[in-house]
């Protein structure tokens, strides 16, 4: 064996694929962004009234709760699982928290209420995590079970009565403006709670990309058995990620209450598939291990925008479902098409 042969295989420059396609491949959320821009342009052409600052504010506000849910769903998806119990967790925490505060400490500081709701959600998330870990079954199955369980406990044992007059601090938080301006004789308000979404997104991004835990979550999404073999503790990861998703759900729940000015225990449950769809439209694969926080937010925006321009572009309510359904299919097909080009 002589070494002389080895130098002959001079490194031929690798064939450079189209940089745009390369981008789309590495960052599928560019597709989401493209779709989003396309829709906004189309809607503005059909109805220039869309181009008002208030549109942006309304879309921003409407994205908060779904965005928080989506971040949680994304983390579970990144680790290769699926969670459908988060809406039940949100309903559970927001309702019982409001009930508790109202009955026992109506003047509780709002920060405390938010933290308590987040912690409550995390606690229920831990239940998910423990079950997923110890029962060793796919998280979809476990969370279908816990969705029924949590919702059943809430409605059967905690209460069904809507709380229409919230504790004052909570109500005030829901109304607290971040930006407020007048336009055409009406007040446009971006509420303060909107900030929670970018803050949560930032924390989530940081957690996923800068901490070992974040990498561990993706590692588990890549291949759980391998991750375990490499020394990642599956138990810790399972418990953490479900607790994190639960915490986000708890937070989303209490913000939903504050924004809505009432605590309705029937709310939220039933929207989980839409949230999952938003995350998938944001470029995360349903089979796990991929996706980005930015993509998730874009996916949420896409869904919110599509849902909030139907009246704007004058689609009669009988046709709205057909349009949204058709849009999801088109968007999904577009996604596949772009990724296949590589």
């Amino acid at each position, binding site marked *: 064996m002589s070494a002389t042969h080895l130098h002959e295989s001079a490194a031929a420059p690798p064939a450079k694929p189209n940089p745009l396609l390369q981008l789309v491949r590495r960052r599928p959320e560019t597709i989401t962004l493209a779709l989003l821009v396309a829709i906004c342009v189309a809607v503005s052409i059909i109805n220039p009234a869309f181009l008002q600052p208030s549109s942006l504010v309304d879309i921003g506000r409407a994205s908060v709760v779904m965005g928080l849910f989506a971040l949680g769903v994304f983390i579970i998806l990144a680790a290769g699982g699926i969670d459908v119990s988060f809406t039940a967790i949100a309903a559970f925490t927001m309702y019982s928290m409001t009930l508790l505060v109202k009955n026992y400490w109506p003047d509780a500081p709002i920060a405390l209420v938010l933290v308590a709701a987040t912690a409550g959600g995390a606690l229920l998330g831990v239940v998910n995590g423990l079950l997923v870990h110890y029962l*060793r079954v796919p998280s979809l199955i476990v969370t*279908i079970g816990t969705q029924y*369980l949590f919702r059943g406990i809430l409605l059967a044992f905690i209460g069904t009565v809507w709380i229409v007059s919230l504790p004052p601090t909570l109500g005030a938080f829901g109304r607290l403006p971040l930006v407020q301006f007048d336009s055409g004789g009406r007040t446009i308000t971006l509420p303060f709670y909107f900030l929670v979404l970018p803050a949560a997104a930032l924390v989530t991004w940081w957690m996923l990309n800068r901490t070992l835990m974040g990498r561990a979550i993706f590692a588990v999404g890549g291949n759980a058995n391998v991750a375990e073999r490499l020394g990642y503790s599956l138990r810790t990861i399972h418990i953490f990620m479900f607790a994190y998703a639960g915490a986000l759900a708890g937070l989303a729940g209490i913000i939903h209450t504050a924004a809505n000015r009432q605590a309705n225990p029937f709310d939220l449950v039933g929207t989980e598939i839409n949230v999952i769809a938003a995350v998938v439209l944001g470029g995360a694969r349903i*089979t796990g291990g991929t996706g980005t926080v930015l993509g998730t937010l874009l996916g949420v925006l896409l869904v919110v925008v599509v849902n909030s321009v139907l009246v704007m572009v004058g689609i009669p309510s009988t046709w709205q479902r057909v349009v949204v359904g058709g849009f999801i299919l088109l968007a999904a097909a577009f996604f596949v098409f772009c990724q296949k080009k590589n």
Partner: protein
Amino acid sequence: MRTTGGQLVMLVVINVALLVFGAAISGGAFLSPFNLQSMAGQLPEIGFLAIGVMLAMCAGNGGIDLSGIALANLSGVVSAVVIGSFLSSVDQQAAYSLAFIAGALVVGVLGGVFNGLLISRLNITPILCTLGTQMLFTGLAVVVSEGRAVAVGSPDLLSEIGNGLFLGVPISFVIFIAVAGLVAALLKFTPFGLWLMLMGTNPKAAMYAGFPRTKVLIATYATSGLLSGLAGVIIAARNVNVKWDYGTSYLLIAILIAVMAGVRPEGGYGRVVCVVLAAIALQLMSSMLNFGGLSNFVRDFAWGALLLTFLAVGRYNVVGLLTPNKSKKLV
């Protein structure tokens, strides 16, 4: 690999336990023939949908069918509107019934084929695809019916399907069991069934082995669609009317039944008999709670608890015998 034998036994045990328990708390009234008939009559619509979900799950690769009940409603609505426009359910009873059934089944199959094409040809993730078609189907049903209920009436044949008894067993239940048997045979004895289950465990190997992936996927979703169409027929036959928003809660319940039956969401495993038994168990439980006059929220709670207990019991059996590592593969 989880052998489904244990699952089957467990489901049988649960069903028997529920029957005994129900009889005990109701002083036997729970086992009265009329109540048994009533429960059997309620079962088919959700049962068909659950089998459809099972088929989609077996195909692997995140296969799932969220569009089942939407398609069932669409088939009923479209068939009722179209057939109703040139046949009368009062004057031409037999013709109307047959045409209605045929129409609903055709719409069901077409919807299923549509799903299958999108998933196999365009490679759209099943969960996104069927979510989209779920909205599309519902939306089309709204458009076709303008949001109203469409009357089917009770022509002889249909009302016989909805309300009739055969040897004391509701005819709809007989149909359900027969169709479930056919699907089970399809899975067990035909090339399609073998391809489906093998493909579900390893799609890549299936490709190398030259399986007709597209055809299998389309056939799978088409069968699921056909079952939706059947569900649509049963709904119409029992309720005299069809409507686009019927049974929205069935979406998750159908999945619940499938996973309780031990169908693996990763694909490759599922037995029709287990799905039927799981559906019966849920039906027994929910009727029992209605008998006891308990709040329906308790039912949700009980379903969740039942599913989790089920998983825990399955796991516990394993723990005693084998190492945790192995339990993923063997029972």
